């Protein structure tokens, strides 16, 4: 069977349509954002430990970084249609 290219194997080039300058007064380059802005628009590439579920890990991150909202990009336990009981053997508090 013919091999399908993975999305990360596709190469794209940039084509220019019009030339225009950007005003440094507005916005920030993503890598120059002040730290508070960075956390507001931030993403973490987490190495998930074995044990807790993706959902639990996400809620710990919320506590560690004291952010109001957090969500994960694709659960690592997709077959989990059911919730799991809190009275499990694992601690559910953030690691301290």
């Amino acid at each position, binding site marked *: 069977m013919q091999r399908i290219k993975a999305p990360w194997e596709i190469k794209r080039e940039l084509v220019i349509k019009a030339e225009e300058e950007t005003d440094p007064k507005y916005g920030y380059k993503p890598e120059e954002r002040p730290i508070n802005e960075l956390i507001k*628009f931030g993403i973490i590439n987490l190495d998930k430990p074995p044990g807790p579920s993706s959902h639990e890990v996400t809620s710990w991150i919320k506590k560690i970084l004291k952010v109001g909202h957090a969500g994960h990009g694709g659960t690592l336990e997709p077959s989990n249609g059911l919730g799991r009981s809190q009275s499990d053997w694992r601690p559910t508090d953030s690691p301290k």
Partner: protein
Amino acid sequence: MGWGDPKVTGVLPIALNEATKVIQVLLTSGKEYVCVMRLHSEVPEERIKKVLEEFQGLIYQRPPVRASVKRRLRVRKIYYIDLLEVDGRNVLFKVGCEAGTYIRKLTHDIGEVLGCGAHMQELRRTRAGPFTEDEDSITLHELYYYYSKWTETGDESLIRKFILPMERALTLIPKIYIRDSAVDAICHGAHLTAPGVTSLETKIKPKTLVAIMTQKGEAVALAKATATTEQIIKMKHGIIAKTERVLMPRGTYPKKWKTKKRAGVS
């Protein structure tokens, strides 16, 4: 492992605050896993290799009994399966696949084709969309340490390295860069028209999900393109992408569009 697979480890991108809006891109992006498959009897290595190759390309897959989606036969893309090691009945392989592919089910099906049966022993995700196990990957403990370093000493250099801008999540989708003057209109939900575009990436087709970016490289919105790259380059007016999800807060850039003067208002 009664509930799902909490033992599964690896790449789990977590979006904070406003960045949660880009999660939809990550949910639908391809994944890569390294998997230990346990065979139920010994099989020669060449045969395993041959069968794994058969699973590359389009496969049919019925979601497992305990799944969070409807159990209907679905087609999934397997980009590659590379056999890494065979040790007795344990088979280590790497698989690149479309979002929503069940690896537990895949190993089961491989076992059926081999004729001996097989199950998934261990799983680690090595890629989720653009995120891999590289130098910006972080563990919970490191994150906690770097965050407290920052709050205690005010030194943000450590935590800065690991909180990535949300634009990183958009690395794999094609981008359209726009003028400063078009940014706030998009933030208010307007569709992108041809004059606002300064540059764009190749291989854009109608209905592809694109990211609208400022010239500084900030994400403005996610949109569905309505024309190809070649067409957009030639277009002088008209809508070229329909805004689906605004990412940038309104008012970040100045409002530059004209509004009609209403009667009675001078």
